[in-house]
């Protein structure tokens, strides 16, 4: 059993508090991603779990042990670092077998474990090489091999793919997912890349400024973002988010343009309330070039000018001006549009989000 639980975890550097009393329970064999912008405390939290940073307050449990005061070597964890952190003077095989050698296991057992890991990661050909003779992707695989050889309770990944190019990153993403299916360990994975977090994990923890904003499955955080920040952070291109005021049963934007209140929020708002209206580019589209998911009556269409377009082949991102600002719309089956052209822009309001302008929390119950 390797559950991990963080209880009111706090990290301070001097007087500067960087992690503010966070709580999180990771289930056995769960793949959980900590995601957020730089400086949100995700790596610090991971390093506290690893034992590489002191814990200022709160408790960390791995399994049923409180590990606060245990050195890393007694926590039975493995960690994959962003910079790979391979031992430059050891061969690939020595790198992978190092933890077992330190643990005093017999050479035959080490060889067997290394061979097995090498097979899993297709590293058999490279066992005698040194890290300096490997490419970035190979080094990353060795780092993962080093982690799995120990058969740890928990795998910790600290932005493992950030140093790879885009293509390799996709490949390695798939490999990590396969690996997790094979080794069946608990994984805590830190990344700033929401795509990695979405594709890999069972649950995502979105962090910001040392707080947890939301914990949920990829579907939950995408479809039901708990805060304005999560809404803006998850999804690409980012969600259109605009402040508005409720008046006459409508959402009125700063320049006086208005949209109907999304049906699911009608009884959540009152006149004079300040809200943040959010809608994904997928749910804004030139009429006839998108798919609305709800009732057709919830689709509201306005006639607006096009500012610019970004053709991507199978679709085009259209930046259209409405309410004094450019909104991103996704046009399927794209047709040629030019700046200045007018389009009928449809808003699928059944898919829209409303957040309180004060608390930035969702108005959805």
């Amino acid at each position: 059993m390797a559950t991990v639980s963080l209880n009111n975890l706090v990290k301070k550097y001097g007087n500067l508090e960087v992690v503010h009393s966070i709580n999180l329970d990771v289930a056995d064999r769960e793949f959980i991603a900590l995601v957020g912008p730089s400086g949100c405390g995700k790596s610090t939290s991971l390093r506290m779990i690893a034992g590489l940073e002191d814990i200022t307050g709160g408790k960390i449990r791995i399994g049923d042990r409180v590990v606060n005061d245990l050195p890393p070597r007694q926590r039975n964890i493995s960690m994959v670092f962003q910079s790979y952190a391979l031992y430059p003077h050891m061969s690939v095989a020595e790198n992978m077998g190092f933890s077992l050698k330190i643990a005093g296991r017999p050479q035959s057992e080490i060889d067997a474990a290394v061979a097995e890991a090498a097979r899993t990661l297709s590293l058999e050909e490279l066992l005698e090489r040194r890290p300096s003779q490997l490419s970035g992707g190979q080094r990353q695989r060795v780092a993962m091999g080093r982690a799995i050889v120990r058969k740890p309770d928990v795998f910790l990944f600290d932005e493992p793919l950030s140093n790879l190019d885009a293509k390799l990153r996709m490949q390695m993403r798939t490999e990590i997912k396969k690996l997790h299916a094979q080794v069946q360990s608990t994984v805590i994975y830190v990344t700033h890349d929401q795509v990695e977090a979405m594709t890999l994990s069972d649950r995502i923890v979105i962090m910001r400024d040392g707080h947890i904003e939301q914990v949920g499955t990829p579907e939950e955080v995408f479809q039901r973002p708990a805060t304005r920040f999560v809404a803006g952070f998850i999804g690409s291109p980012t969600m259109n988010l605009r402040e508005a005021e409720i008046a006459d049963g409508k959402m009125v934007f700063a320049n006086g343009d208005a949209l109907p209140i999304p049906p699911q929020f009608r009884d959540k708002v009152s006149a004079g309330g300040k809200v943040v209206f959010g809608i994904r580019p997928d749910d804004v589209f030139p009429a006839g070039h998108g798919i609305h998911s709800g009732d057709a009556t919830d689709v509201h269409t306005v006639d607006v000018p096009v500012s610019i377009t970004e053709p991507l082949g199978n679709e085009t991102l259209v930046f259209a001006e409405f309410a004094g600002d450019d909104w991103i719309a996704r046009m399927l089956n794209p047709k040629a549009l030019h700046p200045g052209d007018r389009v009928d822009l449809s808003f699928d309001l059944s898919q829209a989000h409303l957040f309180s302008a004060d608390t930035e929390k969702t108005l959805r119950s």
Partner: protein
Amino acid sequence: MRGWKPAPHVLLLLPAFIVLAAVVIVPLLLSLYSSFTPFRLTRPDSIYTFIGFRNYERLFSDWDFWVAFGRTVLLLTFALNLEMVLGLILALLVEKATRGQRILRTIMMFPMMFSPILVGFQFKFMFNDNIGVVNNALQSLGLTDQAIPWLIDGRLAFISILTAEIWSSTAVFAIFILAGLMAMPREPLEAAKVDGCTPWQSFRYVTWPFVMPFAYIAMTIRSLDIARAYDIVKIMTDGGPAGRTEILWTLIARTAYSDARMGLANAMSYIAILLSILFTVIFFRQLAKARQQIGAEW
């Protein structure tokens, strides 16, 4: 001369060749030649008498020479090892300092700022059996009531010289190793912690292999230094008493200038140089190996 025009690269390199020949190659060849003659400074004509390998033959059966040779190797071995251990400890301690590290680094280098001659005089005074502070301190602490003959007993004199040598030059090791420690990436150390290493194992398997090339550079420099050691010994004991601290270069200098037997002294020098070359080759090999091991890109 018309029509003869050397290629530009020959022309450009010529001054360097001429200077090198004048200050290095000619003296070197001359001294090599003189080691095959019974050349005495007092009888200049003797340089024209060629005696073949007789000087070398004589040295091979010269007990005093080989004792001095052995003592030099011994001094080298002890000094290098002790300096490396002490330099390593010093570097590790200074690296741990989070504040005032710059000042510590500067202070660490102080001993290197003194001329070896002055270091020799200072330690000669400190180890003096009558008025030296070492005996004074030992007596005040009640550890002994005798005047220990630091510079007179052969073994003690060797230790005294070793102490002076180490005091003045441990900083060389400390500086190189410190540079290595500061250039070392943090992550492999953290990986080692996670992999289950105790602090000692982290040092043994990760830190040490990384700083080893730096230690070898220091070792190469210091081995050449000690192999030509002269000044500190000259001042502290002058090879005495009765040749009990004689090392290669004090012996060579005595043979050349006091006894005026330049031919023989030159033969000794050539054997001594072989020793230096040997150590340099050894350490450079080790350095190359260590560098390749850590996959260094310099």
